[in-house]
């Protein structure tokens, strides 16, 4: 919440963000667990920040939630269980990787629709242009 006061004056077209970032030494069991933790927290959103992941954010709440994730990991919870744990408390908003639901069908399949529509146009164009005359290569090899 304290960070909320700081919003506003940042120049936008610039790659800018809140100044201090999260350095949070945690006692991981091994490199594998550390990487899993980094991967997981970078997919979770810090609720109180403008647009930062738990991994990046220095907000107080982000730190608490990071530690919570760490604890859950020590208890042997899987990534999905940890995500569910947070979703149950904070809603889907915490997930940067929105799960496929009725509300996100358009998000996940929209690009495929665009692609299919575009592909149909491309196929039609190529067919039509193939018939519109004899396709000839340019005479001079230099014209590349």
């Amino acid at each position, binding site marked *: *919440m*304290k960070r*909320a*006061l700081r919003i506003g004056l940042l120049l936008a077209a610039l790659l800018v963000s809140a100044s201090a970032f999260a350095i949070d030494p945690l006692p991981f069991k091994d490199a594998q667990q550390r990487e899993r933790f980094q991967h997981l927290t970078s997919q979770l959103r810090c*609720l*109180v920040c403008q647009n930062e992941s738990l991994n990046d954010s220095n907000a*107080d*709440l982000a730190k*608490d*939630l990071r530690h*919570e994730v760490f604890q859950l990991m020590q208890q042997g919870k899987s990534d999905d269980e940890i995500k569910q744990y947070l*979703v*149950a*408390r*904070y*809603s889907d*908003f915490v997930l940067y990787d929105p799960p496929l639901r009725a509300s996100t069908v358009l998000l996940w399949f929209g690009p495929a629709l665009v692609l299919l529509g575009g592909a149909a146009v491309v196929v039609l164009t190529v067919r039509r242009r193939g018939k519109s005359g004899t396709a000839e290569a340019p005479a001079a090899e230099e014209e590349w």
Partner: protein
Amino acid sequence: MSRALPLAIFLALVGLFGFGIWWNAHHDPREVPSPLIGKPAPAFDLPVLGDPAQRVSKASMLGKPYLLNVFASWCFACRDEHPVLMAEAQRLGVALVGYNYKDEPADAQRWLAQFGNPYGLVIADRDGRTAIDFGVYGAPETFLIDAQGVIRYKRIGALTPQVIAEQIEPRVRALAGGAP
């Protein structure tokens, strides 16, 4: 037709942006609705502020509805909210329970001594672990919990007289009338 398609898509986008401007002018973009509304409040077991030996749990609070107000001495918005609570606490018709969030007990007690204590009971969550179960992400927040321990309503941000009159009082009356 196909030549007008880009224009049509663009106009739909303009509509979306117009909506976005309107929406942002009327909503706090930081507000994330809680998924806990209509669900049982999480189990908790926390000490009373200033009296760590005495503990309050979800079970001990069952039987009567109450308003759980998350506050902290470090929270500026809570200071703005505080006079409203002082003025309205008696008229709410429901017990007002303070939830001291991530605060030094001494700071919180000094704060209450200075600005007044509108709460019938204050519980302290020093490390904020239980607050995560409640989905708290910043003070002030306020939960309305019914006699069965179900969360009926959550306010994110400061309570105002208007919010109390329009959002909280009708719900409190409904609870008192027995209708859920």
